[in-house]
């Protein structure tokens, strides 16, 4: 139980830093830390492979992309002189709190059923055999999606460059 609380605390702290930090690079690295702490939670929950995957993909690739792009655009030296729109802040926080309340209600009402743990054998082999049998179509769709994403990135990124060369 102690480990649970500790990990949740860490994740919450870093999550808050992501949202409320002034500088975006700080936000990016705190996102990295949140993702790593989520990986730790996975590990603690027993799904070891997923934590490895989480570290490898989320922390290892996506977060890097963020920092990478931030450095490319050197976001830092932007003067952030935009005025803080008070009314928007209030409305947004209010509605988000309402949504949070609704979700909390959902969990509160069925916390008993949710928290009992019935561990099926979660050996990775059995689980991932399922990936290639019952979920074969989504798996193929995912590959197609990835391919499309790669092509999209190449096109979008290079498109801009071509325009530049023309000028």
């Amino acid at each position, binding site marked *: 139980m102690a480990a649970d609380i500790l990990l949740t605390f860490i994740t919450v702290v870093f999550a808050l830093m992501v949202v409320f930090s002034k500088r975006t690079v700080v936000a990016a690295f705190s996102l990295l830390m949140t993702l790593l702490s989520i990986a730790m939670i996975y590990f603690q929950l027993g799904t070891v492979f*997923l934590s490895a995957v989480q570290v490898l993909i989320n922390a290892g690739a996506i977060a890097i992309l963020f920092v990478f792009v931030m450095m490319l655009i050197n976001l830092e030296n932007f003067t952030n002189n935009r005025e803080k729109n008070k009314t928007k802040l209030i409305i947004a926080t209010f509605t988000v709190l309402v*949504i949070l309340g609704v979700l909390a209600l959902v969990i509160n009402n069925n916390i008993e*059923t949710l928290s009992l743990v019935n561990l099926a054998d979660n050996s990775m082999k059995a689980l991932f055999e399922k990936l290639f049998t019952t979920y074969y179509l989504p798996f193929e769709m995912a590959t197609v999606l990835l391919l499309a994403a790669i092509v*999209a990135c190449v096109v979008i990124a290079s498109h801009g460059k071509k325009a530049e060369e023309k000028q």
Partner: protein
Amino acid sequence: MSIYYYLSIFLFCLGLLGTILKKDLISMLLCLELMMGGVALLFILFSKSTGFLDAQLMVVFTLIVSACEVAVGLSLIIALYRKKQTIYTDDIKIITE
């Protein structure tokens, strides 16, 4: 284990709030990533409590989707930056040139 449920919805809502409050596009994308983390965690928790293991596969798929989304999102931001030299949402209101 039950505290993680609250954590996941907290992450989700925080990400949502961040997406709304943030000024520039990249941090919005960041917060989106945060929401994704929250959802994935919820998947795992449900798979543990109901014993339905396939949910863990869903996490893999959400990861894939979030990876694609981030990749395309960031390349769009770069292209946008090249064109408009700014990625603050206030400046990108006008769609036409």
